[in-house]
């Protein structure tokens, strides 16, 4: 059984997810910077159908524009808000993190897990009126797999994809890839119009099978995207908004001003200003408790750069040195301390692990002394555009136990290369909520982005091999818990906090996404019941 999949395969979600999560920290939170996709009905009022006087237009903001609509160039995180509305995906992640069929009706794995059969709905059409069938999905997936671009890595275990009939797709893998199932909620789960994909204008003018289509007249690339509801979409009634305007506003304060001035209907607001919205009487608020995590990746677990890190006691000392409650308070109090890498919404989360590392500087110092590093040592860490605001606190916490941090400034476009360089023993990084299978691949596999020095361990290898055979996500909780516990007990990471986000909603609107949902989707925006 092959546990290791190619390096690039492993890094794709972490990067986008972390960048989306990082935006929450650096920008203080924008509506685009957060969660979810939901079940097809979450866009409606709580009673299941929109009230007669319910709003039919929605204006929201995202903090960055999608760089392209070419399927291979689609980014996850914030960008999914727009492309997810146009293309839709085979599955979406439900409120509790479960897989919900969307363009698909179901799936099944072969016994060896190397063949995935997905059944599509038989009533799918593109916004140009042509049918969207298994053949179009095959063309889309092959385009993503065979074209150089950001999304290619997500499809690189796909050996072949066949359209058995109009509604049946058979995907064969070169190696077990349980995370692929959840990737079908993301860019490899889209169906794009293949004839259109050859056009040069495709990057700006997409044709998809989703609930909305881009209004080319009102849309200004990079600035404002206007989405018009498709009445011929299979589940059009579940979407209460006839027109959705997504404005690109990078500045968090500008987003809040726009919300207060009535130009936006729902937006993520900064922790510091959330109470003002709550008490104003003009807005209701919805709070997500844990939608992204902040942590130190102690990447040099073998001590290749700093020999001290090969000693478990040193890695544990870092975990004891972090005042996680203080980090939460410094971040505005929205969120909770993190003592393990798995999110509370995942099946691998184990409350018992929360008491392994409590804040204890003296204990941290004595562990360092036992390991022979009483005098401390110095390390280099990459200073990334997404982490600068948190760096002083990290510097201080590590200085308290004698570890001096030198920050290397990294240009934004070099972020991934810096992480993969293997130059940094410890990295401050972020992640969005991930399904268990993807979390395992992205955090613990030998080729994972967050394992840049490819550390392996016999105990972990055995667990990873078991995890790679999981084809029913609901049945894997025990394995996922064990892998999570391995990470905590061996101090591969030093988790800091799970960050939450508050959404302020104008009258008549309601944010219905949950912390368990990773990508931003239009289904997270609904009308008040």
């Amino acid at each position, binding site marked *: 059984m092959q546990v290791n999949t190619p390096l690039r395969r492993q890094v794709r979600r972490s990067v986008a997810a972390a960048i989306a999560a990082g935006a929450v920290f650096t920008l203080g939170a924008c509506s685009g910077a957060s969660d979810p996709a939901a079940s097809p009905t979450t866009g409606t009022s709580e009673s299941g159908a929109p009230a007669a006087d319910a709003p039919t237009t929605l204006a929201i903001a995202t903090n960055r524009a999608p760089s392209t609509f070419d399927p291979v160039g689609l980014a996850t995180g914030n960008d999914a808000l727009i492309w997810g509305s146009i293309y839709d995906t085979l599955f979406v992640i439900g409120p509790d993190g479960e897989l919900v069929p969307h363009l698909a009706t179901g799936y099944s794995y072969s016994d060896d897990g190397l063949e995935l059969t997905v059944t599509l709905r038989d009533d799918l059409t593109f916004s140009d009126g042509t049918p969207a069938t298994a053949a179009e999905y095959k063309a889309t997936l092959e385009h993503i797999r065979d074209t150089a671009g950001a999304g290619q890595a997500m499809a690189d275990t796909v050996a072949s994809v066949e359209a058995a009939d109009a509604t049946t797709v058979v995907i064969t893998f070169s190696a077990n890839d349980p995370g692929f199932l959840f990737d079908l909620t993301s860019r490899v789960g889209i169906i794009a119009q293949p004839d259109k994909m050859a056009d040069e*204008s495709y*990057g700006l003018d997409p044709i998809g099978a989703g609930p909305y289509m881009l209004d080319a007249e009102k849309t200004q690339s990079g600035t404002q995207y206007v989405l018009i509801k498709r009445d011929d979409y299979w589940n059009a009634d579940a979407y209460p908004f006839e027109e959705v305007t997504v404005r690109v506003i990078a500045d968090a304060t500008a987003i809040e001003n726009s919300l207060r001035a009535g130009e936006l209907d729902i937006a993520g607001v900064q922790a510091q200003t959330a109470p003002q919205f709550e008490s104003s009487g003009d807005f209701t608020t919805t709070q997500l408790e844990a939608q992204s995590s902040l942590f130190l990746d102690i990447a040099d677990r073998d001590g290749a750069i700093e020999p001290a890190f090969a000693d478990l006691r040193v890695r544990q000392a870092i975990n004891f040195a972090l005042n996680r409650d203080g980090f939460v308070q410094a971040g505005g109090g929205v969120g909770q301390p993190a003592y393990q890498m798995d999110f509370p919404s995942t099946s691998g989360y184990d409350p018992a692990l929360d008491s392994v590392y409590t804040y204890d500087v003296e204990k941290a110092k004595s562990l360092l002394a036992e390991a022979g590093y009483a005098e401390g040592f110095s390390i280099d860490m990459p200073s990334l555009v997404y982490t600068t605001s948190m760096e002083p606190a990290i510097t201080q916490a590590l200085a308290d136990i004698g570890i001096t941090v030198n920050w290397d400034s990294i240009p934004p476009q070099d972020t991934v290369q810096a992480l993969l360089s293997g130059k940094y023993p410890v990295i401050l990084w972020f992640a969005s909520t991930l399904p268990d299978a993807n979390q395992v691949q992205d955090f613990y596999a030998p080729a994972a982005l967050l394992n840049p020095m490819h550390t392996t361990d016999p105990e972990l290898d055995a667990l990873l091999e078991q995890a790679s055979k999981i084809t029913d996500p609901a049945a894997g909780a025990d394995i996922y818990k064990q892998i999570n516990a391995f990470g905590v007990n061996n101090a591969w990471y030093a988790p800091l906090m799970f960050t939450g986000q508050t959404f302020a909603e104008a009258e008549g609107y309601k944010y219905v996404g949950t912390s368990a949902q990773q990508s931003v989707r239009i289904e997270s925006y609904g009308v008040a019941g």
Partner: protein
Amino acid sequence: MLLFALRRVAFGLVLFVIVSFTTMFLLSFSFDSIIGSKLGSAANVDSIAAMKADLGLDRSVPVLYAEWFRGVLHGDLGASFFTGEPVTEALPSRLAVTLSVVGPAMIISALIALFLGVLAATRGGWVDKTAQGMMLTGYLVPNLLIAIVLVVVFAVNLGWFPATGFTSFAEDPAEWARSITLPVITMAFGGAASMANQVRGTMIDELRKDYVRTLRTRGVSARAIVIRHALRNSAGPALTVFGLTFITLFGSALFIEQVFALPGFGTYSFNVALQGDFPVLMGLTAFGVGLTIGVNLLIDLANGWLNPKARQY
């Protein structure tokens, strides 16, 4: 005058080539990063090399520059690496937004500066002191603060103007005016202060000159002395400051556009720079350098026209 003009144009062209070539040369060190950013997590040595060759970025900088410059001469600045949108199509709409704000801000600043500067220089006393106080305030209060106060008071609390966004003139002239009002006031505030100070200074110098005294003794009215003589003679230095202020306002558009979420040149440049979209970055550089050189050229020519002595430089 013609020779002077030709000399200035030639100088401008040389400057354009130097700056744009230097930009391309510096960007060439980031080609791998730029392609890495396009490839995302699929980036590795092989995929980067393949895409570099595919995009023609594996050639030497002089070859790349020659091709780019030829394109510029033919009005072709290439297309975005990410969206495929031609640069010549992407720039005008963004430029229109920024000029919508910078243009009126410049005109209002200039009018305020002329009024305030001349008033301060001619009246003296408490009028001068008050005017100087206003100029100092304009200098000292950061644009960003003014923008935030304006948004909170006039957009959020009173609801007279939109807090963010831009409506094009073609779509709705009244909404266009509403959408640019607060950004224009913000920009005009600082712009007027720096220009007014310059107008005041040069006017005071002019009014102290012998020819002004002579004109007074001949019974020429104070108003005529100021408007027909002193103002024209002090226009040279003031024009230079006006030109520089225009370029400064254009540069500061980034901050104003961020606060008011305007889809202008500054916002676009910022996003493109973060992304490392090479063809667009070169297009923006060409435009930025062209604008700076063009404005300076116009000022030089205007100065040459106003002051024959300036033509010999």
